């Protein structure tokens, strides 16, 4: 079992010398790239579906049963089917990351719409707002804090799925570092993969919180 000094020294070494095909920077960059693509698709699809499910009873009635069955299945359980459907390339990895982030965005976006104060909707309609104006000027901004909370949880979910994603035949990435470390019984390399996952995850969540404070100043000012 590697001690802290050995792990620290190894991480420093990996920043300079390649491990596998690239340095630790390269591995972090490869994972981040996959996560950003998977997360972006999950966010776009999740927010759209969530808002639609919150707004329309018909969409909710159609989508909710299927969504509730798919939602509890963890990202790692999707690996075999993903390989069958998408092979072992980048698309498969991105799909696993997408699964890791999708559900929370849908749930929060839907909750955001469903918890809009009906008095505000009534006030807008009585001022003559059309359905589209009510959605754009009341429902959407009112549900924004929920949507953003979902995006934050989803980002963590997507980043945590990177290990599962890189179990699908990868040659770089922090997940690959851990998996090859496990295969070679190299605990220092496992730690060298784990620590960047934690640090980068922390940085990403902090970044999202900062963006939320900027965009939802009205929701945060008095805190």
């Amino acid at each position, binding site marked *: 079992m590697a001690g802290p000094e050995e792990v620290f020294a190894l991480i420093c070494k990996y920043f300079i010398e390649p491990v596998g095909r690239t340095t630790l920077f390269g591995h972090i960059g490869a994972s981040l790239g996959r996560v950003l693509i998977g997360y972006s698709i999950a966010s776009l699809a999740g927010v759209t579906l969530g808002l639609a499910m919150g707004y329309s009873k018909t969409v909710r009635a159609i989508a909710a049963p299927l969504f509730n069955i798919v939602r509890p299945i963890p990202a790692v359980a999707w690996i075999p089917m993903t390989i069958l459907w998408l092979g072992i390339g980048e698309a498969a990895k991105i799909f696993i990351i997408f699964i890791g982030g999708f559900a929370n965005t849908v749930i929060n976006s839907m909750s955001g719409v469903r918890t809009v104060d009906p008095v505000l909707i009534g006030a*807008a309609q009585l001022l003559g707002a059309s359905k589209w104006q009510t959605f754009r*000027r009341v429902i959407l901004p009112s549900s924004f804090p929920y949507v953003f909370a979902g995006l934050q949880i989803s980002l963590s979910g997507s980043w945590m799925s990177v290990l599962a994603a890189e179990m699908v035949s990868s040659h770089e990435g922090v997940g690959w570092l851990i998996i090859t470390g496990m295969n070679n019984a190299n605990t220092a390399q496992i730690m060298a993969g784990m620590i960047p996952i934690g640090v980068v995850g922390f940085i990403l969540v902090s970044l999202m919180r900062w963006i939320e404070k900027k965009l939802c100043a009205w929701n945060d000012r008095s805190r």
Partner: protein
Amino acid sequence: MTPGDNIVEVRNLTKSFGDLLVLNDISFDVKRGDFLCIVGPTGCGKTTFLNSLTKLYDIDRGEMLVNGESINLKKHNVAYIFQEYSTMQWLDVEQNIGFGLKIKKRPKEEIQEKVDKVIKLVGLEKYRHYYPNQLSVSMLQRVVIARAFATEPALLLMDEPYGHLDLQLKYKLEDELINLWEKTGTTVIFITHNIEEAVYLSNRIIVLTNKPTTIKREMLNGLPRPRDIASPDFIALRDQVTELIKWW
């Protein structure tokens, strides 16, 4: 149409929830520039009455005409102030006040001009860039009232807007409302269960019965303004309305 003509005509308004008949064949007129207060016993269906007027509820029978035409919220400039605070949390005071005008797609310059005018009338100039969660309860209600007046409504409907406030604040906001009404000449229909408030604000009072609700009496209120709630005439009118509302 000359000032004093009917702006609102309510004909045979009837509304039930299932087997429960709430509003039973209500008809009345409102003249341009009127301050009409509608009072009635608690639970008689005052809010149902207002929501039926504005078609927030489907009615069983009857109609409400504004300027001789069936009410259409997109066409007729009607504003509604709820009992609950309906400020938009994500908009600052200035944006909240201009919200109705933005919905009506008025030009930016016109919105700014009207917001500036109304914000002064309600005394919120210093708070124009504050968000609702930074304001007091009375300020929130002022924002909502300013939003309604900014659209220069032909008709302003108010559903117990001061129901949640303490007495001192209520008196202050009532005076502000009278001031705004006198300056703008807006027609107001004000729902309240508070008889003193109705006598203080109105120039006409409609007293409703218990369910199934009908109109018990329409009364003119010609007390001089500013009104003194301790004056004998005020007390006499208040007692008269109180007697009419008693159902026990």
